[in-house]
């Protein structure tokens, strides 16, 4: 069941034209998709927690991580020496996280955290 949703999302992610169609007319593209109503609703919501539930990587009850391999692959390094080197050279100096602009929708500045906070709160009940 989740394979169909996964395939739908991979198609979107891999095909810029298809993504453009989705962004312009999500209902139109979803009408052609072989997905359940719940899956379509999750896609339309564009809510990462809701999509994770639809994909089966988190539980419906609290929106938390259920898939043991999912969520994070970074290792806790207790007792180990990590070979991570940071060596970036950066050229611009901006340090304000208040004016975050949506990078995908271009919806303009929004107050960082307000919307996700509401979303997450409602999922975790």
């Amino acid at each position, binding site marked *: 069941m989740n394979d169909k949703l996964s395939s739908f999302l991979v198609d979107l992610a891999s095909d810029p034209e298809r993504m453009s169609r989705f962004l312009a007319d999500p209902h139109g593209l979803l009408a052609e998709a072989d997905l359940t109503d719940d899956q379509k609703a999750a896609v339309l919501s*564009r809510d990462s927690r809701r999509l994770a539930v639809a994909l*089966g990587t988190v539980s419906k009850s609290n929106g*938390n991580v259920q898939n043991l391999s*999912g*969520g994070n692959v970074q*290792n806790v390094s207790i007792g180990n020496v990590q070979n991570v080197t940071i060596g970036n050279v950066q050229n611009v100096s901006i*340090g304000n996280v208040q004016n975050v602009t*949506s990078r995908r929708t271009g919806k303009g500045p929004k107050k960082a955290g307000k*919307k996700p906070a509401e979303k*997450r709160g409602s999922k975790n009940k």
Partner: protein
Amino acid sequence: MRVRRPRAAASIAPSRRGSLTVVGAGITLAQQATIETIACIERAEKVFHLLTNPAAEVWVRRLNPQAVPLGDCLTEGKPRSRSYSDMSERIVAAVRSGLQVCAVFYGNAAVLVQPAYEAITRARSEGFSARMVAGVSAEDCLFADLVVNPQGLGWQCFEATDFLLRRRRFDPTAALILWQVGLLGEASVRPEMAGRPERLRVLTAALRRHYSARHRVVLYEAAQLPICEPIIKMIPLARLPQETIFPATTLYIPPKPTVIEDAKIRRWFVQD
């Protein structure tokens, strides 16, 4: 002047047929994989992957039907260190059998992915060619999504448990990034994982020695799907223990202001 080759690079002296390439798939499904990463996956004779959602697994399988997951190595109650060791052993076993192997991990395999390092080290120690390809990390996404640039801010990052365990010293006038805040002291994995409030209180107390209770911090999660937005939640530091913090959540702490400047260095800017 003679340039010294890094030890790791010097150890690439393949004497056996099998080989290993470790790649990172990036965070956002399909869109953050580099051309090099895609080519490595497509050309491999055997692909192993540890990814965070089924869609990413479908994407890898489309690139190479020989792809098999490593997620079954992670089981509840099993030490994660052992799980990672099992993963790397499985990867290197395929290399030993003479195959061109590609191991795909979430994000940038070069950043805090223990099984990736273990597999590379083991393969090289046994005389196989093994290399790592850089990918897009959650940290890369964080800088872009929060629109913060470490120049002028500085930039320190620690794995959160390591930060507490080693009592890491840091400069609060530079930005601080703590990874895996939702996994403080978790030796294994379990369903429904989230940060334990009592451990988050310990972390908050450690941070409170350097920041005020009202210092604004950011809980951040990069978008895994291209139709989603990243999760960015700004809270006062004191509220951290009350938050539900997921394994993939990163804590970004903006720097405290500083006015310290070295006058001698400052003068360099006006010298001819």
